């Protein structure tokens, strides 16, 4: 027992030393401004342009609005409210799933959620709402209420080899602490604007990634089994996290580390 506590003390010493060293390694305002400026020349802009062509040939605004049950002019504000209940689906769906429905409705082959085609179309369609604030409504109906509750459960449930949950790193207790030089983001904060800035170009991977895919990658690194894209749990998690950052301005495609 004594040996164990010694070990813990030593570890904490080492870790605290690391944290202090990392403090001096954080970016200054000028650095942050330079990275922010890079948004203007986001390589994912090429993907979004391609997504526009795909969306127009596969679905089109009229057909998409019809599936969502809204007018074409109301598409942007509807898009800013995903994940949402879609009547013809009878359940809460992500924007990508609504595109799948629209493709099926037009008798086209349905692109898989993880396909490049779907990622690019999703980014384009989400970008139609750029400049608007995300307006997810978790109290809109019974289905959304249920999904928000399930999403919180998924967020807080400790799983995997190390018993971690999303909350282990993204709880208010620990936000701002550093994990290998990176400050853990507050998923609800304006500067994080999580749901409003995905799909985003990930500089570490040089590709555009969707929000749910990013959450899968996070699970993988924390040794949690990855929730499948489009599963009820994954959609619920997206509902919960999107709602944390409700009201942030849509800026698609984002640019992330």
């Amino acid at each position, binding site marked *: 027992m004594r040996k164990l506590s010694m070990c813990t003390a030593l570890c904490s010493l080492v870790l605290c030393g690391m944290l202090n060293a990392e403090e001096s390694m954080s970016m200054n305002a000028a650095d942050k401004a330079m*990275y922010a400026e890079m948004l203007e020349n986001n390589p994912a802009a090429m993907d979004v342009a391609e997504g526009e062509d795909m969306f127009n040939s596969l679905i089109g605004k009229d057909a998409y609005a019809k599936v969502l049950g809204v007018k074409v002019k109301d598409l942007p504000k509807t898009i800013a409210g995903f994940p949402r209940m879609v009547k013809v689906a009878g359940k809460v769906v992500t924007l990508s799933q609504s595109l799948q429905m629209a493709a099926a409705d037009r008798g086209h082959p349905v692109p898989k959620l993880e396909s490049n085609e779907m990622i690019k179309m999703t980014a384009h369609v989400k970008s139609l709402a750029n400049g608007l604030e995300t307006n997810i409504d978790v109290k809109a109906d019974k289905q959304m209420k249920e999904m928000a509750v399930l999403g919180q459960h998924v967020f807080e449930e400790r799983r995997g080899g190390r018993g971690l949950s999303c909350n282990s790193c993204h709880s208010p207790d620990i936000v701002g602490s550093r994990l290998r030089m990176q400050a853990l983001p507050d998923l609800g904060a304006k500067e994080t604007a999580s749901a409003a800035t995905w799909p985003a170009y990930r500089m570490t991977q040089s590709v555009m990634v969707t929000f749910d895919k990013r959450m899968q990658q996070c699970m993988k690194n*924390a040794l949690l089994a990855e929730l499948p894209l489009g599963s009820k749990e994954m959609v619920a998690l997206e509902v919960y996290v999107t709602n944390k950052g409700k009201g942030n301005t849509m800026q698609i495609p984002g640019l992330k580390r």
Partner: protein
Amino acid sequence: MERRSFLKGFGAVSACAALVPSIVSAADEAKKVTGPNEMSVESALAAITGGKPVTPSTKVSLSAPEIAENGAVVPVKVSVESPMSANDHVKAIHVLATKNNNVRCANVYLTPANGEASFATRIKLGTTQDVLAIAELSNGTFLSAKQNVKVTIGGCG
């Protein structure tokens, strides 16, 4: 620090550390590998200037982050004070990453039609190092500016 949140954080740190091999050791290993265009700063400078002196100058402004979040995408901007006239202009801007296997990033040959001597891009930096910008003027002289960029170890995922 509160014990509970400390433990949570520690779990997260070790989970990531276990999965992602340290970038530092990856960089050390990379040093042994030789790229097809390997070139040192000395050779690259000699090729650019033909042995002429290079003078550090405030006329050359080089911006790069002091700390790069990610060595794979480091924004670099260079601008040089110049009238960009037919008689007096910047002929070229050269960007070098002094510790990369091939230090050359881009050789940019400008003309007065550019209106101003500026160039911006994003480069890969294998490790913490100086980024060097050389401006070649129409009168045959060379000016330079440099900035150190610290490349940090990335976060989770």
